[in-house]
């Protein structure tokens, strides 16, 4: 089957007085593995359910392969959804669960048998046809749910937090299998998750949602390196953010904030607005003991170690600069001793790592 595109145009949805989705616009390319990432209550599951037809969009259009499906009931959309809790019917065996959608499509019995065997093979569950869902492990249940959905050869595959009910180790393994499967079937897939790592590792592109609004759409790298706003910067990875005002004096750009006081920024940088936020990732900061002068094209902050946590691969310091706290991640080398609390330090941030976010 050739993969189809998915278009969301100006979609809005309100439950009573609360706006759950506001002016949503998305274009998912055929065969793309696309994530909807956001905290709980951001509207990502609502949007997925809207695409499946369980929520009706009150305005705008939902286009599957260019056709508006807004008025089409869920059972006529041919859009496969894997539910967060799998929703396997306990009164049916694995085979009966998987055959269900094919039977609803009135396929001949022989064809149903063939397809059931085929998808169970695909998810590596051949031999468990006669088991009941209650007799399967969590991971197996999840694969039955996927098989049941794939059996109907849906135009789109919708995954609602499919990994959240698995334990950490299985989650990692399943994530990779899922990606492989998606590549192999080349089916346009939407993946809802609140876990940024899941989204970054598996998906081609990600839409970040908050409070019913799409905050940014982009590849994992784009979102991480070029967050458009405070929310995206904080939700995707960790970040140091300081609100303040930019000014220019003879020697270059200055940043004034309550937390850090006045800081000189590398000369090559230009602020887009006089007011905004200064952002840099903890891992991009170089931490030096004592007083170290800034090299060319570096921002320099002087502070005192307030606390440190050893996380194995790296050390996370909280450094007090002025009245603010700066997070600093330093990769750990064997035998290296962390700086003690109270030690005076200098923080150096290279110019390319510094971003300005509009207020």
């Amino acid at each position: 089957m050739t993969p189809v595109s998915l278009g969301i145009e100006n979609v809005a949805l309100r439950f009573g007085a609360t706006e759950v989705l506001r002016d949503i616009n998305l274009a998912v390319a055929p065969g793309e593995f696309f994530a909807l990432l956001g905290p709980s209550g951001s509207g990502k599951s609502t949007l997925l359910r809207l695409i499946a037809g369980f929520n009706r969009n009150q305005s705008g259009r939902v286009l599957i392969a260019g056709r508006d499906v807004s008025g089409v009931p869920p059972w006529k959309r041919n859009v496969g959804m894997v539910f967060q809790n799998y929703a396997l019917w306990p009164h049916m065996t694995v085979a009966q669960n998987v055959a269900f959608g094919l039977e609803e499509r009135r396929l001949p019995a022989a064809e149903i048998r063939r397809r059931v065997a085929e998808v169970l093979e695909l998810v590596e569950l051949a031999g468990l046809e006669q088991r009941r869902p209650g007799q399967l492990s969590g991971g197996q249940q999840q694969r039955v749910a996927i098989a049941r959905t794939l059996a109907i050869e849906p135009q789109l595959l919708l995954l609602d937090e499919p990994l959240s009910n698995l334990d950490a180790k299985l989650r990692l393994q399943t994530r990779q299998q899922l990606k492989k499967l998606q590549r192999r079937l080349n089916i346009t897939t939407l993946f809802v998750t609140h876990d940024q790592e899941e989204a970054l590792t598996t998906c081609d592109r990600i839409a970040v949602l908050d409070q019913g609004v799409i905050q940014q759409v982009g590849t994992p790298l784009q979102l991480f390196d070029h967050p458009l706003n405070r929310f995206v910067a904080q939700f995707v990875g960790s970040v140091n953010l300081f609100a303040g005002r930019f000014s220019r004096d003879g020697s270059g750009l200055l940043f004034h904030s309550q937390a850090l006081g006045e800081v000189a920024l590398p000369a090559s940088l230009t602020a887009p607005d006089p007011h905004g936020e200064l952002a840099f990732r903890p891992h991009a900061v170089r931490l030096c003991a004592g007083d170290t002068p800034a090299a060319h094209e570096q921002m320099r902050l002087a502070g005192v170690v307030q606390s440190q946590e050893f996380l194995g691969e790296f050390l996370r310091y909280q450094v007090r600069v002025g009245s603010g706290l700066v997070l600093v991640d330093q990769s750990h080398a064997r035998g290296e001793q962390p700086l003690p609390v109270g030690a005076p330090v200098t923080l150096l941030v290279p110019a390319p790592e510094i971003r300005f976010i509009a207020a």
Partner: protein
Amino acid sequence: MALSPAHTTSRSGAGVVALSLALAAFLLAFLLVPVGTVVLTAFSNAQGGFTLAHFAAFAEISLMRESFGNSLYVAGTTVLCATLLAVPLAYITARFQFRGALLIQTLGVLPLIMPAFVGAAAMQLLFGRSGSVNLLLGEAFGVSLPLMDGLAGVIFVETLHYFPFILLNLAASLASIEPAMEEAAQNLGSSGLRLFVRVVFPLALPGYIAGASLVFIKVFDDLGTPLVLNVTNMLAPQAYLRVTSIGLEDPIGYVICVILVLFSIAAMGGAWWFVQRRDFAIQSRGGVSAPKRRLTPAQSLLAYGWIVAVMLLVLSPHLGILLLSLSKVWSFTVLPEQFTLAHYATVFEDASTMVWNTFLYCGLAALLDVVLGTAIAYVVMRTQLPGRRLLDHMVTVALAMPGLVLGIGYLRTFRGVELPFIGPLTASWLIFVIAYAVRRLPYALRACMAALAQIHPSLEEAAHNLGASRWRTIRRVVVPLMSGGILAGFVTSFVTAAGEISETILLTSRESLAPMSYGIYLYMQSIAGRGPGAALGVIAVLLIGVGTWLSHRVVAAHAPHDLKGAPP
């Protein structure tokens, strides 16, 4: 005191042992022995040896074969009709945003507050050959519906009385299905009736089976309704007639009792096995129920139409009995021609003893139930006494016992037993109290156990820790905290005993001992007595209705309490 809390609860003092033995002795004497006697009699020859001859004799009598078939047919058909009535109502309440939800809840309770046999007489006047409905149909279309003829009448009355059991159980089951279960089916292309048949109903099956098996048992064992409708070719009436006309020695009556018990046990056990066998474990994980949909105008029309139709049917016995109690003459007319309060006057004059007897028997029986229920719940749930579960199991036996069987068992077992101050036990007020109490004990026990399960053991341990002994802790902490459940158990026992007829007609040895339910039955036997019988019926319905309302209030008021910790 260096005792750990676990130690305190595991220690079973002499008091607990004595109490448990007393409870076991009561259940043995008034439940297991009488029922055992009935079963034994059915299998014993004149010399006391084992025989199947009585069963062979039963099978030889064509009336018995016919009665057996009829009882199965009536019970089965009632389940079917009740299902047709209840399934749409349950689905509407569970799945749609609907203003009539209160109406449906009312529908679920209304039939149960009127004993089926009371409604039966009124139904005859409304739906019988020369009843109001057929008179109207005859005038308008020249047709008449044989709704109340013979077995059909029993099915009609029982359906209207018992369908709430299916409605309530099924609605609860439907509400507990996770929304994703249905959405997954819709996502895979299923909708409408196919969705209901393939996914929704199978998932709600545990609730349906529980309700349906209960309806089957109740109808299969019912004595009052067939007797009032003058249908005697069924098993329960036959057993009653054999025992009362031929005598307590007639073995066929006992054979019928054994069959009734076997079918009750089979229906209950079958329902249990069915639910066990299927794996519904992963079904109710989230505890979120399905979002309720809005009805389209056409659906609204259909839903309200169905509800109003069922409501009219369900209310008809209530209206009928009220009209009958107020009518001077009502025969061959659509509605009574003249109204009077004379029947109420008659009832207050002649039958006030019966009303008093009902209060006495049912009050004492309910009291006995909650005392026994509290004691058994405590022994089973709070002590480590070996074999304590046995008490629970013994009480469960009562659940499967038809009143008729227990009544016959009492008559046979306690024949000739004389008590000081009371006289012959089987001809005393005490036998009613015991009979009523034993059959309602399972419900009272469930209420007490549910209440006790809500009390965290640490609340008792705190009392022990502050120096209260086991008995003082029970009196000052456990029983006060259980009071809501105990009260609900009391009212339920009282209310169901007030409408009881099977045991009552067997155990009433003289009119001065008779409770109200017997009075209604007796009055209804004659045309002249129908008016006063209906008046007494109205009083009974009011009593039961108020009681039911009270118990709902109590349960609502005592629902999850701040003082009670989470169950362990």
